Structure formats: structure tokens, C-alpha cells
């Protein structure tokens, strides 16, 4: 598992998003996802959307994925 794979999967589900994924060990990941589609969505639902995009590797190959999810306005 690596940052590019995670980035690709998120973009597959959220093609207009700005995605940045970082990791020191390819086991613990930090991702920032900026997408206006998040407007009006609770944090929990925004994160669920990203988890769904990543698929079954959550919890196994990806031990931890810390997320920041924002709309463009929130990220300013």
C-alpha cells in the first residue's frame, strides 16, 4: 500500500477532489481531501465516503488513515 494507490482510489470516487496523502511508513496515512461535494455533509459521512472509495483495505493493509475533509471554502 502506498500514497499513490490511496490517492488514485479517492480520485476514482471523487474525481473533482483535491487529494493529498502522506505517510512515513506506508502503514499510517494522513489524507486531506477537498471537495465541494462535501458541502452540507457531516464529518462522519464525509469520512465514510472516502473510506468507501478506498475499499476493503481499510483496517488491514491500511492500519490507519487520518482524514481531513473540507470544501474549498472551509479550506481557506
Amino acid at each position, binding site marked *: 500500500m502506498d500514497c499513490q494507490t490511496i490517492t488514485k482510489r479517492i480520485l476514482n470516487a471523487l474525481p473533482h477532489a483535491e487529494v493529498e496523502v502522506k505517510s512515513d511508513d506506508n502503514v499510517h496515512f494522513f489524507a486531506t481531501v477537498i471537495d465541494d461535494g462535501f458541502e452540507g455533509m457531516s464529518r462522519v459521512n464525509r469520512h465514510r465516503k472516502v473510506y468507501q472509495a478506498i475499499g476493503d483495505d*481499510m483496517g488491514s493493509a491500511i492500519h490507519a488513515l487520518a482524514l481531513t475533509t473540507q470544501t474549498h471554502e472551509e479550506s481557506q
Partner: protein
Amino acid sequence: MNTQQKIQEQVNSHPVILYMKGTPTFPQCGFSSRVASVLKYLEVEFHSVNVLEDDEIRDGIKVFANWPTIPQLYVKGEFIGGCDIVTEMFQSGELKQLMEDQQLL
């Protein structure tokens, strides 16, 4: 009673419940430890469930919340989030506000 029912009952019977790895005194994971610390800092009373002691709960809670990871914090039956959401809400003041609104502080 199946696992989902058991979890539902746990979530209904404790106003603040944290599903974590380890216990608040002896956490077994950095993320779980952080959420427990935040709750202790806010002086919120909470019940904790050590998922490492029960594989059925450990797997069942992920189905229950439709959420793939532990820790999981529930307040008055509602799933609030994991470590990153709780930390974000704590830093913005939203978590303390939520606890006050729910009369838990």
C-alpha cells in the same frame, strides 16, 4: 441476543461510550489513547469497551457504525467519529459544546 443487538443495548445504556483498543488506563493504541485523553481532559464521564477482549464486538462495531476502524465514540446513541474527527471537534471547541448541549458537562 446477537452482537448487533448487544452493541445497540450498550450504546443505549451509556450516554458516552468509547469502543477502544485497551482501556483508558492502559490503552493499546495511540489513536484510542488520544480519544480517551480528550474525554478525560474535558472531564466527561464515559464507559469504555475494550474491543481487544471480544472479537465479536471488535468486528461487530465496524458493521454497526458502517465504519472500518477503532476507536469509535458514541454520545447519546449517536456515532460521533474516530480519533481524527474527535480531535478536530475538540480543537474547534465543538466537542465541549456537544457535551454541554447534551448536559454531560
